[in-house]
């Protein structure tokens, strides 16, 4: 670790400019919202979107082809971090657009958006972390904001219950994570990723049990954040209880950040433990694919179904970690990028389905959508076929890339299991299409009319189809993003 002397020189803060912008904007929105007349409260949502765009622009203009460190190696900015942050910005912006209508009648809207920004800030720190301390701080910031956002409709019993459950399990997982980190620190005497990695590689056999114990606790904590089975118990309840716009946000953005941390930890900290972690992740991936896809079949609520579907997709994305190769990680990034748009699009449709009193949450509510709104039906069809991994949709290439990476690394049986579970998964996505296209309308629809939402749906559907037809550029970008770290 670098020598720290007092008075220390002013640290290089340039790599953190996007984070600083987001932090300031979040505070500003929180303060200014108090002074805004109630009919103009929606400016805070726009302000949050503009913040994301400025942060993205700043991040892009600051980033170079090489890795830049700040704060004595506690924070790094490299192409990988920039790419993952772009995904996080995209997820946040889409989630904010989804919130406009959903939160129209809620109080304290400024708090809501500033919490989203703080949550995003936590993820940005996670993505740029090169030290367990930074990683933990980012993760806790993200988690605390998510707990509050899940409980946002505090008068709704379901929402509070979900948040409490999420909070208790989340606190437990943070404990596990810290416990694991403390083991690794005890063995290596450092919290810096690359220093820990070097020390682990040269550690003697007598330290092995401590190392493996530390690794297991660390991975359990991380698996909780990405909701991999068997650390997924909180997911369906939290997804169902949260406001739908937050469900959409939670199903994508924290996963992106969690997978970014997983890649960094695997590459920097644990290359010497590859056989061990590959075995652990093989179980996590297979269980996630199995539980996610099988349990989703039994769901009647679309939010719970999508929650289990997220678990299944996490299992597929983990195949990239199992491959433990540059092409595997690139495949994960492809998966996350495509998943972001198809899942956000699906949730946008769910929010658009809101009716009087009902919020379009049951699968039955979709019956006959294609007659009333062929456009929405077509878009939902695109998202469902894409989630099922049918060609000419982006989801096919996501699955293709992770399966290719797993097979290349010699994990043929896991790939076979995965591909069979993707067939199981196709069933419940097809069932949604069945409700939309084959069934008759049962209850009168009452759609939210919102141009930004419709634009979001159209945009997400176009992106999914465009990636489905021309996946080349995305695959190149994802490989390039990994250039600095693998």
């Amino acid at each position, binding site marked *: 670790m670098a020598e720290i002397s007092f008075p220390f020189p002013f640290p290089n803060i340039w790599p953190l400019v996007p984070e600083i912008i987001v932090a300031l904007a979040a505070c500003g929105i929180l303060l200014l919202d108090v002074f805004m007349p109630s009919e103009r409260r929606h400016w805070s949502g726009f302000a949050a979107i503009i913040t994301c765009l400025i942060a993205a622009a700043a991040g892009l203009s600051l980033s170079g082809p090489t890795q830049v460190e700040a704060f004595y190696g506690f924070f790094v900015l490299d192409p990988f971090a920039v790419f993952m942050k772009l995904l996080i910005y995209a997820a946040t912006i889409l989630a904010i657009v989804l919130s406009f209508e959903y939160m129209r009648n809620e109080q304290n809207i400024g708090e809501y958006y500033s919490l989203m920004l703080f949550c995003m800030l936590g993820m940005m720190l996670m993505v740029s972390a090169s030290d367990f301390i930074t990683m933990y701080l980012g993760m806790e910031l993200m988690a605390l904001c998510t707990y509050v956002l899940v409980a946002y409709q505090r008068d709704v019993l379901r929402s509070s219950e979900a948040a409490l459950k999420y909070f208790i399990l989340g606190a437990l997982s943070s404990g596990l994570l810290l416990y694991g980190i403390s083991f690794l620190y005890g063995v290596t005497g450092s919290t810096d990723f690359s220093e820990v990695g070097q020390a682990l590689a040269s550690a003697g056999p007598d330290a092995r049990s401590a190392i493996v114990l530390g690794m297991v606790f660390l991975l359990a904590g991380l698996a909780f954040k990405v909701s991999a089975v068997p650390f997924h118990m909180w997911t369906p309840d939290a997804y169902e209880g949260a406001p739908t716009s937050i469900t959409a946000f939670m199903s994508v953005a924290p996963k992106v950040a969690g997978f970014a941390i997983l890649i960094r930890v695997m590459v920097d900290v644990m290359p010497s433990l590859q056989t061990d972690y590959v075995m652990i992740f093989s179980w996590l991936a297979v269980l996630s694919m199995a539980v996610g896809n099988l349990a989703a079949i039994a769901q009647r609520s679309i939010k719970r179904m999508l929650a289990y579907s997220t678990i299944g997709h996490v299992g597929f994305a983990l195949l990239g970690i199992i491959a433990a190769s540059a092409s595997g990680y*690139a495949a994960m990034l492809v998966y996350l990028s495509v998943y972001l748009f198809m899942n956000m699009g699906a949730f946008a449709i769910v929010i658009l389905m809101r009716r009087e009193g009902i919020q379009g949450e049951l699968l039955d509510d979709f019956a006959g959508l*294609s007659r009333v709104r*062929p456009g929405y039906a077509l878009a939902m069809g695109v998202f469902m*076929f894409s989630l099922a991994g*049918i*060609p*000419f949709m982006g989801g*096919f290439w996501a699955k*293709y890339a992770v*399966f*290719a990476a797993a*097979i*290349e690394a010699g994990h*043929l049986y896991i*790939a*076979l299991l995965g*591909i*069979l579970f*993707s*067939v199981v998964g*196709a*069933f419940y996505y*097809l*069932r949604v*299409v*069945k409700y939309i*296209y*084959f069934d008759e309308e049962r209850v009168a629809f009452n759609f939210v009319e919102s141009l930004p939402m419709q634009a979001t749906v159209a945009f997400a559907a176009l992106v999914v189809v465009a990636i489905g037809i021309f*996946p*080349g550029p995305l*695959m*190149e970008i994802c*490989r390039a993003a990994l250039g600095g770290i693998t």
Partner: protein
Amino acid sequence: MMEALHNVLNFPILSLSIFLPLVGALYILLFVRGDEAARWSALAISVATFLVTLPLWLYFDTSTAHMQFEEKHMWIQAFNIHYRLGIDGISMPFILLTSFLTVVCVVSAWECITKRVKEYMIAFLVLETTLIGVFAAMDIVLFYIFWEAMLIPMYLIIGVWGGANRIYATIKFFLYTLAGSVLMLVALLAMYFKAGHTFDIQDLMAYAFDFRWQFWIWLAFFFAFAVKVPMWPVHTWLPDAHTEAPTAGSVILAGILLKMGGYGFLRFSLPMLPDASQYFVPLMVVLSLIAIIYISLVAMMQRDMKRLIAYSSIAHMGFVTLGTFMFTQQSLEGAMVNMISHGIVAGALFLCVGVMYDRLHTREIADYGGVVNVMPVFAAIFLVFAMSNVALPGTSAFIGEIMVLLGTFTVNKTVAILATISVVLSVCYTLWMYKRVVMGEALKDTVKSMLDMNAREIAYFIPLILLVVWIGLYPLPVLDVIHASVSHLAEQATTSKLGAANMLAQQAAEMASHAGGH
């Protein structure tokens, strides 16, 4: 370095054939309003596509087995996937059959599809794009993508416009086919890494896989193609899908989709995995004979006309798989002719059932009887196709079956004799159905009220009749087209790759020992 592409027209005609229907579907989606306009635009687009595919036949060079009308562009650099198209004598007939049957389907749906006409036409045009794509693709990933994308329009066609039990049927169809084909995806990824990062079909044909690889890849392909053909015992989706699909859906299903399985065996299993194909001959022969004999018996017992024809399709495809795995020139050509002929005949039979269904809205054999008294023209047309189905000499099916049987006879007499039983059985089930439906007195009031076919209905049967009789009496043009490619295929299928694979393994071992030595 770019290799020279064989394309006499110097024009991307295959791309045009593939994407013209898709562009047409987008046009209908965005700009066409009203049912009548949708029908006419779909007709115009499908006819235009048929005209575009005609030069493929007119300019086809029958003297070579080389791929023709080739196109090649890099598509996805990261995985070395090319947008590569090309056709030979094995794929060209299917492309023409597809574009031709799509026109027939659009016309046949003119009056019987009354709800959501626009979406129906869009689904058929998208389906046409994926089907032509399957037969034109020369990159195995491109092939796979069209192969799977085909599921989406077909799922919607059966699910939206199908019969009473359509949802069960369409989900069963989708999941069966998907489960079969994902194994193919694993196999082709494994081949890609084994054969040095290439998805090019011709490179993979040339690469010498050792027996262990051939064994497993063959099995994975087998599941994909056997579900599609379909072969016993994975055929159970077909009767349901056929029964519940709208008439035109059944036509495309029987006419083209089943042929994709047979085409898969011809294009992938035989030339890429010759040794495994030889190894699995007993399995294929047994399954084909079960399809031919057992399924024929099952067909005889059906009370639903569409189910009967569906089972008859499985039996006829049994001939195709039998001929395919005899590896002789004659049996392979017989399998090809059988597929082409069955595409026309089974399609026409489903159209005949559709004509009756449009009038009485029932497919039960027992609900008819004496139809000839009220619909003489229809009875005559139905008879032509019933006779084709039993492979009467002078019809196209006869040419296909006799060639398969002759080819089989030279290899294995017992199998040939067993397969010949089915000729008798197909007479039983087809003519018995014809007798119960068409012959006799018209006793039921419902039957008496049936009107004979109108001009539109007759119009789409005429080209089908002409084709059946033309191929039946003068099959030379068809045989000419497929001859060179089939003899090349027969050579590939009977040339073992194991020697070359051993050489490769030895080279690799030497390389390794060299590397170890230094």
